[in-house]
């Protein structure tokens, strides 16, 4: 599945342009505190049926980005267009199409389900809110959803604490699917699960994608999942896009030093290969988003950094349809 096909064949479902989200912090009685620059000018678009991964270290703004897209947070600047409608500052009434056509799968299978509600009621909540139909119709739809995500519908009236982590994540997915959405925003949907449950949930998400023609905005820090599950990748660092590309191209030939470092940090399940591999691990931690460094946010840790990286924020290379990156001194493409 190449991006070209998608882009040419199908319209953009989601278009994000110059998105900025800042959080004021520590604003006390006296004077103003700082500002957390969580997202600093992120642009991308997502076609129908496409899966875009957003990767990066903790605190790089991935989750903030996801929450802005679903308008759980109001962006500071930039525009978000969903199905051709500008939702950046839309009031709740005008968000109804978004609430129907986009849903979120959360990271924490324990915290994302209200412990006091029965699971049928949790899954049925979006249906009731959208006045989907009569009680009977809602119940039938919930039954259908349970089957669809591989849950036993006879467990209808149980409470969340009676399920395992993987089962709860299925409940969360069933809730997200309730209104036949087009876009699922998944915020690290498997990182809280054990490995076998991870595989099951990923398979479920893959099956659902094929059956229901879903698009995913898939937030993760697991590059293995990106390689196996996603069409395109967006690499973020300190709130900025470092590189955005198709999965195949990014893994074969990363152009940004940060992407290369991320790839080099992925464990290889083969000790011999691991030992043979040349690694230049990154030192230090990302700078605080309270006071991001000038110029390229990655330059203090970058092995290729020069004076220009300190002085000038590198712009994303022009959209050539597949591979864009923001670096003054990108890595060469290895000619094989």
């Amino acid at each position, binding site marked *: 599945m190449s991006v070209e096909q998608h882009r040419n064949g199908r319209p953009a479902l989601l278009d994000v342009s110059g998105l900025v989200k800042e959080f004021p912090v520590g604003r006390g009685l006296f004077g103003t505190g700082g500002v957390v620059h969580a997202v600093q000018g992120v642009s991308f678009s997502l076609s129908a049926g496409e899966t875009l991964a957003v990767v990066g270290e903790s605190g790089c703004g991935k989750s903030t980005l996801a*929450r802005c897209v*679903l308008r*759980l947070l109001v962006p500071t600047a930039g525009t978000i267009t969903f199905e051709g409608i500008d939702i950046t500052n839309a009031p*709740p009434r005008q*968000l*109804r199409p978004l*609430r*129907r056509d986009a*849903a*979120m799968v*959360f*990271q*924490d299978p324990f*915290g*994302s*389900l*209200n*412990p*006091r*509600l029965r699971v049928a009621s949790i899954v049925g*909540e*979006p249906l009731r*809110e*959208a006045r989907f139909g009569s009680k009977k119709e809602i119940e039938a739809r919930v039954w259908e959803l349970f089957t669809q995500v*591989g*849950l*036993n519908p006879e467990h209808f009236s*149980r*409470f969340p*604490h*009676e*399920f*395992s982590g*993987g*089962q709860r994540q*299925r409940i*969360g997915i069933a*809730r997200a699917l309730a209104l036949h959405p087009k876009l699922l925003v998944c915020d690290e949907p498997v990182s809280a699960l054990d*490995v*076998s*449950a*991870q*595989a*099951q949930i*990923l*398979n*479920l998400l*893959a*099956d659902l994608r094929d059956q229901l023609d879903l698009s995913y905005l898939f937030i993760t820090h697991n590059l293995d999942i990106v390689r*196996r*599950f996603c069409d395109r990748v967006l690499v973020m660092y300190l709130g900025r896009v470092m590189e955005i590309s198709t999965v195949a191209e990014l893994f074969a030939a990363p152009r940004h030093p940060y992407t290369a470092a991320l790839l080099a940090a992925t464990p290889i399940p083969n000790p011999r290969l691991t030992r043979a591999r040349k690694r230049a691990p990154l030192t230090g931690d990302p700078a605080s988003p309270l006071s991001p460094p000038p110029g390229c946010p990655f330059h203090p840790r970058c092995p290729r950094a020069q004076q220009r990286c300190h002085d000038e924020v590198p712009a994303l290379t022009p959209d050539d349809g597949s591979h864009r990156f923001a670096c003054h001194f990108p890595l060469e493409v290895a000619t094989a």
Partner: protein
Amino acid sequence: MSFSGSQTAGVADSVMIDPTLSVSFRARFVRRVLADKATIVAAVFLVILLLLATIGAPIVAALTGHGSNQQFFNGLTVNGVPLPPFSHEIANNGQPNPHGAFFILGTDRLGRDMLVRLLYGARATLAVGLGATAVALVIGLVLGMVAGYFGGVLDAVISRGIETAMAFPSMLFAIGLAAVLGAGLVNSIIVIALFSWYYPARIVRMAVRSLRGEQFVEAARSIGLGHITIMRRHLLPQLTAPLIVYATGVVALNILFEAGLSYLGLGVRPPTPDWGQMIADGVTSDLYRQQLWVALTPGLALVFTTVAFNQLGDGLRDAFAVRGSIR
């Protein structure tokens, strides 16, 4: 697309977790309460008290034929002193009249039947104690939820309001306010509620602040639920347990508060019987030196009621606890 566990994909994980966890909240709650003898005793006592106050008082009044404010001319000794418990009214010769009225708990300073007054007094005491607590809870719940949920300026304003209210010396201020508003049942409720809403407000605010960050609240928002719906449907049910526990404890305090106001003559308007007033009657007239029962009987009733409410609150807190020993 295939992963290592693909054979099992789509099939529900069949692992059931710890069976003790599958017991519903309600079942666990009931089991814990039943294991707690002191709480059961307290609850039974309070139920009986409530029954006595509501239907017991008129029944006893009818059976004895004594009204709550009825003064018995022969209900005092020839020296004008109240009669002790289990005594008949006095005949003209100064001796007990075996055919006259019988006072199980004796009579008070004005020759009124202590038993009937005690039972009717429970009405005022409980009505003010429960009523003021209910009003305080509603105010506290609304303000605490708004402050905890929306945060920001609203939270700052409400929190400062809470702190301001807490800074007032409550009894002193209540006395002043009661004096301005005048005595009476409704005024007592207003005054006491005004000085007990801020604790539930603080409890609710803190609880909502921590719940606010839970992912299920975010999930509800992503579905498109409004703030009011989220508060009602997702937050309120989680607040009932701490609020019930808190309320039972505060009823005891408010009953004492009411007794205090009545003791000072600022509670229920005389001659309507009320425990605080009855204690005051027995104490201020120096009767307690010889005629101990006049102050002691309502005093004991007050102590038992307060202790019972406190015990009930403790028991409920243990029973609602998520973890902790299962007794």
